């Protein structure tokens, strides 16, 4: 799972049987009490119902593989919508894609027109929260506001072994041997406090590690070639601090994730990744916009990407999400999709591109838009099954679904 906190928005993406929506009311309360965002559903913060007024809310998910295992309001889309409708008074719910196949759900609120920009504090007996009252918010949507999400299922089982601790441990051992031979170090500058370590990585790691098939040679997950020393301790000697993070870093390099936003084009990009035990992988990346002539340091903006992988064959799934804008001296969106799909080799995947209708986006010529769309239709080795466009008030959503040829 991952959380991204910006000054003006928060993104929370949670895996498995987590109860994401149960944290929503607390989030709105924190935004009011700790960040000072205005409240409009109560007279003051003393009221226990008082919560910050959001500008917009999005909630989305793919259809669950095992809905009966979910908790709280997450057992069905109907319950999730009811939960959100009980909090907000202007939400809309959508289902995108095949009902009898892989589909995707979206709930979003729309900015409301309000004569005075305020509702009467506490006037609604349910203390429902009005969203995005237009007169209460000044400022345009962010330029280049786009979110790309690739949701992949039916991962190639052999390829998915990369996301098992046992396999990654063996690869890490091989890399350690290799780095000792080549005289490379993984990190420098480690500051330890009581329970938290701050690590500043100041050198790159060798991404050309040998693949090791631990499933055939039976190597253990805890021990490297020195069988009396836990792998995590050996990696600590190299400056990494927990086995999950150390192996996550190795997996990021070996699987190709580190090259999605390569340092050659995004020199200040950083990835934080973790390999779970016995399997599963998560990674967050922060990608500062490349510096250009008309983009000085003060104006540079940081974008994110996040990856989550469940490799077990019975429920194999991987997701990739990013708000790094396509093009603009970086990689095109179609290149990113192709790269990500090649990492996970899914049997099926959906691509959702959510783009704000900002003035900048609207200046694209029809030819440019058509060309960009066309390149996203053709992913090598896959057949595009569905393309569905939703035209919302301020956003356009394009949903595409692909199957392996």
């Amino acid at each position, binding site marked *: *799972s*991952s959380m991204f*906190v*910006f*000054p*003006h928005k*928060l*993104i*929370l993406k*949670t*895996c*498995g049987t*987590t*109860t*994401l*929506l149960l944290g*929503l009311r*607390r989030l709105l309360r924190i935004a009011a009490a*700790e*960040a*000072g*965002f*205005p409240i409009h559903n109560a007279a003051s913060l003393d009221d226990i119902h008082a919560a910050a*007024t*959001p*500008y917009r*809310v*999005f909630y*989305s*998910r793919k259809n669950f*593989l*095992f809905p009966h295992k979910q908790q709280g309001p997450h057992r069905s889309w109907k319950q999730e919508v009811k939960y959100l409708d009980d909090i907000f008074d202007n939400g809309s719910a959508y289902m995108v894609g095949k009902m009898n196949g892989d589909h995707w759900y979206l709930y979003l609120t729309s900015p409301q027109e309000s004569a005075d920009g305020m509702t009467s504090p506490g006037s609604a007996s349910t203390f429902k929260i009005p969203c995005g009252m237009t007169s209460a*918010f*000044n*400022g*345009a949507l962010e330029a280049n506001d786009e979110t790309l999400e690739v949701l992949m299922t039916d991962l190639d089982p052999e390829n998915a072994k990369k996301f098992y601790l046992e396999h990654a441990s063996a690869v890490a051992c091989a890399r350690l041997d290799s780095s000792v031979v080549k005289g490379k170090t993984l990190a420098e500058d480690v500051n330890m406090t009581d329970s*938290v*370590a*701050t690590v*500043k990585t*100041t050198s*790159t790691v060798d991404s050309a590690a040998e693949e090791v098939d631990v499933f055939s040679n039976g190597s253990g997950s805890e021990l490297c070639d020195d069988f009396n020393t836990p792998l995590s301790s050996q990696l600590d000697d190299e400056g990494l*601090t*927990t*086995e*999950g*993070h150390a192996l996550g870093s190795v997996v990021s390099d070996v699987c190709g994730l580190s090259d999605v936003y390569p340092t050659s084009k995004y020199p*200040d990009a*950083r990835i*934080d990744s*973790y390999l*779970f*035990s016995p399997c599963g992988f998560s990674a967050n*990346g*922060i990608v500062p916009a490349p510096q250009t002539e008309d983009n000085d340091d003060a104006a540079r903006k*940081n974008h994110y990407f996040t990856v989550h992988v*469940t490799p077990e064959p019975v*429920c194999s*799934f991987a*997701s990739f999400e990013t708000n790094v804008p396509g093009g603009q001296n970086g990689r095109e969106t179609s290149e990113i999709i192709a790269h990500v799909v090649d990492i996970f080799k899914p049997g099926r995947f959906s691509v959702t591109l959510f783009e704000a209708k900002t003035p900048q986006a609207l200046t694209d010529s029809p030819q440019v838009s058509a060309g960009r769309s066309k390149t996203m239709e053709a992913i090598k080795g896959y057949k595009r099954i569905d393309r569905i466009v939703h035209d919302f008030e301020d956003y356009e959503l394009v949903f595409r679904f692909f199957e392996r040829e």
Partner: protein
Amino acid sequence: TFSPSEGTPHLTINHDVAADLDSTNAFEGPEKLLEVWFAPNPNALPEGTKPGGLKAVKQDTWVGMLDMVNCKILSVLDSEHVDAYLLSE
């Protein structure tokens, strides 16, 4: 090899959680995604909002909310414009 600039994000690891996490029964597959905006852009925070907006909220404060979600903080990659939390499960 490259030399990161001052603006390079840096990583903090929460050893209390990250060291002994067992996720044997944790995964189901598809995730849930929630995005809550409190302003149209970071330069348009409403009047009365603290400088930094949500980024001004202390990390410990998020822990209580994340407990309700059943997630723990494994590590944080922080930068000038966004803080990225890697969470358990």
